[in-house]
């Protein structure tokens, strides 16, 4: 499968090769039909059902659509930001089935039936989530571009500590990890702030962590 020759010729041979190597398991007809008709030159569509911020949605998406592009371009939930689009900056962080993930590095079709929470689902301007309020209070941002990802990440990160998941900063692997700044810093390293608001972000997270103890 690690073919390096995926040039148009190999795609034209798609059906032929499939027929020659057909073994015990038959491919669903739509795979061959789509591949044949389009020669994989045009988008392939797929049905996806998601629950985003409590709302159930049925979407017809290009299989290539990332969860991030689904949220921003199809659902117009533009709170989630596209930074690097390669999982390096964390601006796209959302909470999928209770876990923080980089929405740029996962496909919508991989989230059939998933519950997704974005920054829009955490709080509203009238009723901020505690983490949103703490970011405001502690000035945990400058330009604000990384902030939705920072906040979604921080909320899920505190749950990870409560669940007893250790980190690189944990002195002992078998003890319950502590709600302390060194743990927050290590665990938030997947969220980059180009303005450098890190110290205020850690203060905001610390306040929420202490309030919840």
């Amino acid at each position, binding site marked *: *499968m*690690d*073919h*390096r020759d*995926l040039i148009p010729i*190999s*795609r034209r*041979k*798609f059906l032929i*090769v*499939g027929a020659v*190597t057909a*073994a*015990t*398991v038959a*491919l*669903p007809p*739509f*795979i061959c039909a*789509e*591949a044949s008709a389009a020669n*994989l*030159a045009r*988008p*392939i569509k*797929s049905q996806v059902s998601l629950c985003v911020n409590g709302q159930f949605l049925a979407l017809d998406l*290009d*299989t*290539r659509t*990332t969860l991030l592009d689904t949220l921003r371009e199809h659902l117009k939930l533009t709170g989630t930001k596209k930074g690097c*689009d*390669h*999982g390096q900056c*964390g601006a796209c962080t959302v909470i999928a089935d209770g*876990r*923080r*993930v*980089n929405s740029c*590095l*996962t496909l919508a*079709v*991989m989230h059939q039936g998933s519950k997704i929470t974005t920054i829009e689902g955490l709080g509203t301007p009238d009723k901020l989530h505690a983490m949103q309020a703490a970011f405001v209070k502690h000035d945990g941002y400058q330009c604000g571009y990384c902030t939705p990802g920072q906040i979604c*990440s921080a909320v*899920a*990160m505190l749950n*990870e500590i409560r*669940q*007893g*998941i*250790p*980190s*690189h900063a944990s002195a002992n*692997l*078998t003890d319950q990890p502590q709600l302390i700044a060194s743990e927050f*810093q*290590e665990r*938030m*390293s*997947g*969220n980059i702030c180009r303005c450098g608001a890190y110290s205020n972000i850690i203060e905001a997270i610390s306040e929420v962590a202490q309030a919840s103890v």
Partner: protein
Amino acid sequence: MRPFTYLHAKSPAEAAALAAQVNGARFIAGGTNLLDLMKLEIETPTHLIDINGLELDRIEATAEGGLRIGALVRNTDLAADSRIRKDYGLLSRALLAGASGQLRNVATTAGNLLQRTRCPYFYDTYQACNKRQPGSGCAAIGGFSRQSAIIGMSDACIATHPSDMAIAMRVLDAQIETVRPDGTTRVIAVADFHRLPGSTPNIETTLAANELITAVTLPPPLGGTHIYQKVRDRSSYAFALISVGAVIQTDGTGRVALGGIAHKPWRVETAESAMPKGAKALSEQLLAGATPTHDNAFKLTLVERSLASVIAQARAQA
């Protein structure tokens, strides 16, 4: 990203059989590396076979007293498993030293073993790279090679393997269970899993075409002190310049593997008898025949000093 068809597999054997029917099919689990490379069109699958949901996400005790880790166990869950934390601390530590919280929540055990190099010339599609495009040359040789391998490389490739987890698996003598398109299964020792680049750096593992990893098993616990020391340019969320994974017993004997220096986890079993003699002797044997570049010769010193640190930590904890 190129268009692709997409399908959920219903069983591991079916996934492997389906993959064999489509030229250019790939399995997708976490997707954190594959999608990254698909966006750059370094990976251009025509068909994705989603193996999430195959119930390969459990960690079970084996009859031999070890653990069988399903291929789809996420890095976070593996690192946090109480049995791993207690008896295979090296594996927890290695996982937690890698990637970010978001990535570990998604990345899988099998996917971690299969992740591709982070060599910047592999990622830059304007540069020659024998791994990306066989026969095109290697721009890293004679280029910026600070991160590159210092041992085991070839005239065709000087890339390193990026995995932290694989270093721990190599020290622990993990075994990789697979299923092939004809439904047969086999077990591959992790020692035999990753290849040196030779003249075919594009072939990175000994997996056959369309062979699917179903589990990774760990032998019974080794005891001893488990240490994973990673040296990198920033204190979190960066690939290793070098790393040391070790299990050291109270008598000073032990096992060790190095990361960040070769095309695969670097373990030399015959060198391990030098561990009680100290870091210098051990380092000399582990790195015998190393041919670093001007840019990465510092890794020789860094390995020796990290080994000294690890041995001292083990003594202090014994």
